[in-house]
């Protein structure tokens, strides 16, 4: 059975439909990349999946005992303020909050989970550091660790590598792939990096207000939409490579 099932959903902002007639499924262990142009409704869809925005039509059904508060999420731009005083450990631990319900305090199990996820992402030594003093890449790792704390089943990432340099970006993709393979957590990632999307993902959803394509990556490579998009996307990584070469 599918973990998440979207049947013909539409999503609207104040009466203006931005996503329509969209159907797809996410199964356990899937790695789904959502691709599409700016403003095609990717972030909007992610917001609906995490329950911040209910669809104007249709229903998003969560199965397999997945509950709304068991989804890990890494937002597109975090509106976390620049001067916020919080240690890395405090931030990661706050990911456990959703499993607390009305119980007020963290247990030893929560603290252990937070430590384990920090270890997994190689940030265990930053634990006492102040979140605001970290580099962009470190911050993303911390927020990913927090998202991992919040879920055992489904992880939603909205353009997680924005602003990271090519080397850190590659590491980050690797981490996500490991998480997906080792822990069997389903990953849904919004990405503009089509090359790595077709490399890592098991499924692709090409969004342009509605699904231009949904299926396995194999089929996407063969489809006309996919071939065209992959071709047009290859200009960008070239430019990034030069930038990376200068840096190192």
């Amino acid at each position: 059975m599918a973990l998440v099932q979207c049947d013909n959903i539409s999503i609207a902002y104040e009466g203006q439909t931005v996503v329509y007639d969209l159907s797809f499924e996410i199964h356990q262990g899937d790695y789904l990349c959502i691709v599409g142009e700016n403003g095609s409704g990717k972030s909007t869809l992610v917001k609906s999946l995490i329950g911040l925005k209910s669809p104007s039509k249709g229903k998003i059904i969560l199965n397999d005992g997945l509950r709304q508060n068991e989804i890990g999420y890494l937002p597109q731009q975090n509106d976390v303020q620049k001067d916020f005083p919080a240690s890395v450990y405090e931030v990661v631990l706050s990911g456990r909050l959703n499993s607390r319900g009305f119980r007020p305090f963290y247990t030893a199990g929560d603290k252990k989970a937070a430590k384990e996820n920090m270890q997994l992402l190689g940030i265990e030594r930053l634990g006492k550091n102040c979140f605001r003093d970290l580099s962009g890449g470190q911050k993303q790792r911390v927020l990913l660790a927090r998202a991992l704390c919040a879920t055992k089943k489904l992880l939603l990432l909205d353009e997680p590598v924005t602003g990271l340099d090519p080397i850190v970006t590659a590491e980050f993709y690797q981490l996500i792939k490991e998480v997906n393979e080792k822990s069997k957590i389903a990953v849904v990632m919004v990405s503009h990096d089509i090359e790595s999307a077709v490399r890592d993902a098991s499924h692709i959803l090409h969004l342009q207000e509605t699904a231009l394509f949904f299926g396995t990556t194999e089929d996407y490579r063969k489809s006309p939409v996919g071939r065209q998009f992959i071709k047009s996307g290859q200009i960008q990584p070239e430019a990034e490579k030069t930038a990376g070469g200068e840096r190192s």
Partner: protein
Amino acid sequence: MIHTIVEMLSYPFMVRAFTVGILVSLCSALLGVSLVLKRYSMIGDGLSHVGFGALAVAAALNAAPLAVAIPVVVVAAVLLLRVSDSSKMKGDAAIALISTSALAVGVMVISMTTGMNTDVYNYMFGSILAMSSEDVEMSVMLSVIVLALYIFFYNKIFAITFDETFAQATGVRANLYNTLIAVLTAVTIVLGMRMMGTLLISSLIIFPALTSMRICKTFRSVILNSAILSVVCFCIGISVSYFFATPAGASVVVVNLAMLAVYTIIGLIKEKRKICR
């Protein structure tokens, strides 16, 4: 030294001022951290003006001040929160609108009934004589409830202060806790208002948080430091007020200001050291 302190505490009104003041300082320091970080500090200021209006009306009606002011200010708090979250009107403009209106209503009521007298002066600038013994009972009870609720919901308050979207996404009801913070703030402000003065009470909320953030790097340490700092500053301030017969509120604010200066300097020195290393 000890002798003078013992003498100061031999006056029942001073004991009352200390009891209520310490509790209110604690509450406001804790809440202040969230308010400052969420850019809601203006709400504290707005609420104190609403409180002034409520006090004036209560005096005109000959009603118990706390019994009138608490519900009015709580309602105003919820309202202000709604307004500053909705995009229709700019939040700060809306707060200024509500707070000046409340102030104007208060002044109108006062001038039509008792006239501008020392009571009004005390409302505005605070007085250590403000607390009657019934007030103390009620204040102690309410501030203990505020503290207990804060500690109980500490982790959730951290989450919605740090990143409201994520908290919401993972099932924390952010609106509920935002309202909780606003209501607790309202109660705290009303309790401290007559001692600190309506013009100065919001400083109790803002100063300790800002001061602690000069140095502290974790949320928990900011919270603890604010709480301690707030109580210490209050005790020093109120003693100054007693010995030099200065208004209570102003004295406490001046001590807080001095602390902010000290912390800022320490913070700068620490930064310098880091750069040098």
